[in-house]
């Protein structure tokens, strides 16, 4: 009998799907605890204001209301902590103003929570919240980074001069200056990376629970990393020791970064549950998500490349203003520094690089990592700069990339901005993508489109990213306040089935399947015999969660290490049972056998012996078959690849249609190609969204203009093309799986490919650059203002 192949490389259909397609998922808002109360947050509708007074009496008197809290009630608890500390050029630590759970004295963005009402039902809490009498006195506000750093700008935090959180740099300033002085050509580009709103389809939610008998708190929350939330909230905000705080992140409906962070609402419901001795639940309405989930991106940069006469990159100089919003979110300081500036070598051999980054407070929602986090900003800057160089010099877009690629035999490759790449082959992904996209056939398609009155363009991006985060020692030196290893516990049950407990978290990535395949591959048992458990601090030893495309590369590696221990112990048991030397036992396809004989024992038999140790080397070996491993990676992983986008622009309306998209990525070892393809397609959709549709717009007064799906353009099915995905893998050299990560490549590689294509389509209009999103209105204006000049020429 041939069992279907379920190991590494098989497109196994997902184990988790049955519950999701049947309505049996278990999301946070699906949880209801006996005696549960509901919390409603009253938020600021002003971007910046002094809180003159809050009268809670009217609200407290409303039907069903159990409690009303403001900052005055929270004096004993801490602010929401930041998990990363950056030091400025001059060595001083970043400005780290307090981020109170409820606003203290001032509100700093629309959506800043001022008070919370706890009542019997959600509607009662909301009804009562309207009766809160809150007097605010408007203060001048700033929403854009450029306004915030202008002289005389209003201060978001009274004690942060110039709104500068930090003024940081990396690289070799003198070296870059010297190279620029000698350059044959310098090309400069100013560009914005538009602010995005993550909008995972499941709004954030949290349920706090407290057991007065044991003194134990439980928080159910929409999180990508329950252990991190336990650490941050327990240790810094509420002072609850770990053993008295359980954090559960059940099924989570998408995260994309926005559910990494510890949010005020989580602390609030947990604290209130303790005070009231009843469970307290909060679920965000979508309009609340828009103004309270951490936003992404929002950079303003200037980039300059020095070139020699042949188009070889000599030096890169970058200066960036990064918006932090009104407060520092958990990982915000790391995004425009170690997830961005360190990526500025990209796939190129640029020998010297200098980048300075000012992180800036504004009266906007806090900004933090959103799918890709820093790497999309770096990639966009580089890949737009490369195409702009071609625009200015007439060099060919493909040739210049090939000329500057890090060669396939140059690895390990040390960049001038700290990272050391372990492997990659950028020529291979470029060639494959160009072939799949029929780059060579494009001129004919352009001509055909022209005959139909359409402007057709093609663009590419060759990119690299750093993920699989991250070596603890290294990130510690860079300012992380936590380690970034991962943990796996592999439990072989007495009859040979397996439960794996992982510190990573799946909110769409399909870990229950991929990890089961990994275990199946290593232990030789069918996927149906393996369960993967994640998302509960009471069950899983520890873990850092899922973000930065780390789950397989780091979490999977921990699993491999734990399985190595299982196999090592199994060998000892097998040696005892079969009266052989341990060195003669080999493990293959789920069987321990004595080399050179036909004697063997299945994993199930070994497990049973381990748990029923009647015939067992009990003097030298503990019973049981249950192993835990912590894995700390040696380096980041470096996926990369080439994305090619083809668009058609309707001159009359300015509408851009993506007519073809090809992504060929090097994601290292692929466990489940179907899932990898899905991850890339989802990432590309978000990248096309950023390039063409999405924009979190604030007006000059600090009001969020795109505060609902009525105004914020989410990519819909008819906005997107089919997305062709290919992989051309080189293996990661430093983790046991050779895996690199695939969660973010789609969102990182795609935006510049789209914009490069749009600009190519507008070739005849003399367009050098345009900022995302390339909305119909923007394109129409460009076409409009360039048309007369063309006619005059």
């Amino acid at each position, binding site marked *: 009998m041939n069992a279907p192949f379920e190991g590494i490389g098989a497109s196994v259909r997902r184990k988790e799907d049955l519950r999701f397609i049947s309505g049996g998922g278990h999301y946070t808002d699906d949880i209801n605890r006996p005696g549960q109360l509901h919390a409603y947050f009253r938020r600021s509708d002003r971007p910046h204001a002094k809180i003159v007074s809050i009268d809670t009496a009217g609200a407290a008197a409303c039907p069903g209301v159990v409690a009303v809290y403001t900052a005055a009630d929270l004096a004993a608890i801490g602010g929401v902590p930041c998990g990363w500390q950056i030091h400025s050029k001059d060595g001083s630590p970043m400005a780290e103003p307090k981020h109170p759970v409820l606003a203290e004295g001032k509100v700093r963005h629309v959506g800043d929570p001022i008070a919370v009402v706890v009542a019997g039902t959600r*509607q009662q809490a909301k*009804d009562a919240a*309207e009766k809160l009498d809150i007097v605010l006195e408007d203060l001048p506000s700033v929403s854009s980074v450029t306004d915030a750093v202008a002289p005389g700008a209003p201060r978001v935090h009274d004690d942060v001069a110039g709104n500068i959180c930090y003024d940081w740099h990396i690289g070799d300033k003198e070296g870059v200056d010297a190279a620029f002085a000698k350059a044959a050509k310098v090309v400069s580009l100013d560009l914005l990376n538009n602010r995005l709103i993550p909008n995972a389809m499941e709004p954030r939610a949290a349920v706090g629970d407290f057991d007065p008998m044991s003194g134990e708190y439980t928080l159910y929350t929409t999180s990508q990393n329950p252990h991190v939330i336990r650490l941050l909230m327990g240790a810094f905000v509420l002072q609850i020791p770990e053993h008295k705080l359980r954090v559960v992140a059940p099924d989570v409906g998408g995260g994309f970064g926005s559910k990494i962070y510890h949010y005020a609402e989580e602390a609030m419901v947990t604290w209130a549950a303790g005070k009231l001795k009843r469970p307290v639940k909060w679920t965000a309405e979508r309009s609340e998500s828009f103004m309270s989930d951490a936003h992404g991106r929002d950079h303003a940069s200037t980039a300059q490349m020095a070139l020699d006469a042949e188009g070889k990159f000599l030096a890169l100089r970058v200066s960036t203003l990064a918006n932090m919003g009104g407060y520092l979110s958990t990982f915000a300081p790391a995004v425009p520094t170690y997830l961005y500036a360190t990526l500025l070598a990209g796939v190129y051999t640029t020998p010297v690089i200098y980048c300075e980054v000012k992180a800036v407070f504004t009266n906007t929602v806090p900004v933090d990592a959103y799918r890709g986090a820093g790497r999309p900003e770096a990639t966009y800057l580089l890949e737009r700069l490369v195409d702009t160089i071609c625009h200015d010099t007439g060099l060919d877009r493909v040739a210049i990339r090939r000329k500057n690629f890090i060669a396939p035999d140059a690895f390990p490759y040390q960049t001038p901005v700290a990272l050391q790449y372990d492997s990659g082959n950028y020529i291979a992904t470029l060639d494959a993508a160009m072939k799949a996209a029929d780059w060579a056939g494009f001129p004919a398609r352009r001509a055909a489109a022209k005959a139909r009155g359409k402007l057709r363009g093609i663009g590419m991006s060759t990119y690299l990213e750093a993920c699989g985060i991250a070596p603890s020692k290294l990130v510690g030196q860079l300012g992380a306040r936590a380690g970034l290893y991962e943990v796996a516990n592999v439990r072989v049950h007495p009859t040979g089935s397996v439960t794996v407990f992982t510190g990573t978290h799946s909110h769409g990535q399909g870990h229950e399947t991929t990890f089961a395949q990994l275990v199946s591959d290593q232990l030789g048992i069918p996927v149906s015999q393996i369960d993967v458990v994640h998302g509960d601090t009471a069950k899983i030893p520890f873990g850092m969660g899922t973000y930065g495309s780390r789950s397989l590369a780091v979490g999977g590696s921990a699993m491999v290490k734990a399985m190595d221990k299982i196999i090592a112990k199994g060998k000892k048991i097998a040696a005892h049972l079969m009266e052989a030397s341990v060195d003669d036992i080999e493990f293959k396809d789920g069987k321990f056998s004595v080399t050179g004989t036909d004697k063997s024992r299945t994993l199930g038999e070994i497990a049973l012996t381990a748990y029923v140790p009647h015939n067992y080397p009990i003097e030298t070996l503990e019973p049981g078959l249950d192993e835990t491993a912590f894995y700390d990676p040696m380096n980041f992983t470096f996926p990369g690849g080439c994305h090619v986008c083809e668009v058609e622009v309707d001159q*009359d*309306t*300015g509408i851009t249609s993506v007519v073809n998209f090809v992504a060929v990525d090097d994601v290292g070892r692929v466990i489940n190609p179907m899932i990898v393809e899905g991850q890339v397609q989802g990432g590309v959709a978000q990248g096309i969204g950023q390039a063409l*549709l999405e*924009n979190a*717009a604030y007006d000059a007064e600090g009001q969020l*203009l*795109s505060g609902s*799906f*009525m*105004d*914020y*353009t*989410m990519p819909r099915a008819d906005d997107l093309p089919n997305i062709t995905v290919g992989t051309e893998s080189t293996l990661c050299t430093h983790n046991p799986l050779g895996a690199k990560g695939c969660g973010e490549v789609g969102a990182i590689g795609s935006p510049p490919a789209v914009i490069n294509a749009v600009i190519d389509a507008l070739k005849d209009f003399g367009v050098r650059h345009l900022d995302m999103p390339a*909305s*119909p*209105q923007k394109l*129409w*204006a460009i076409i*409009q203002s360039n048309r007369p000049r063309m006619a005059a020429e």
Partner: protein
Amino acid sequence: MYDFAYQKPSSVADAVKALGAEDAKALAGGQTFIPVLKQRLNKPSVVVDLARLGLAGIKVTGEAVVIGAMTTHGAVAASAEIRRAIPALANLASMIGDEAVRHRGTIGGSLANNDPSACYPSAALALGATITTDRRAIKADDFFQGMFTTALEPGEIITSVSFPVPAKAAYMKFKNPASRYAMVGVFVAKGPAGVRVAITGAGQGGVFRHAAFETALSANWSADALAGIATPADGLNSDIHASAEYRAHLIGVMARRAVAAAG
């Protein structure tokens, strides 16, 4: 939303009576009203559900298409009779919202609401429709009175809408990229009342007729006839998705496309 009393009368007379109560509001498909209630922008004392008044239905004669107020967008889009008589109307209905919205939203609700970015008002105005209520008949020209404002008196219920069958008509919609409502919608018609062009989505005062286009098309019914005519941006809406100038431009593009589609 705020709580309210709910009534579901079975006759128009009873409904009118129920709507006589202070802050009483009619509920049709709820595809506008319920989102408004959820945002707590409206605080009715009584919500009067019009579902049981027998106001749904389509009647097509040689000269007119008469649509009951409670007829859903989906029913209009799917009606073979309407597709034959005024295909532009069925097309317009098929472009409103999404399938689920079209299964509930009604023509009466859309006209009564007179959202400046709604689709139906342009058809009513361009086709010279007559809106019949529990008490009178109102010409479309008199019905729309600025955004979210109509000639309806408090408590007045639309019962049906009658569209004269035109010789030619078409609707072209440039969707707001986010909400998918009309950012600019143009309905062109050549009918018993002459050539009429109605623009929705663009005007600060809601739907309006485009006199310059009407004159040009009356002389020469062709897309080319509109080529040189610029629409002034004054009085047009401006928002993050489209400036008044861009809307003015799109009015021209959509109008030319509509005329071409109308044949």
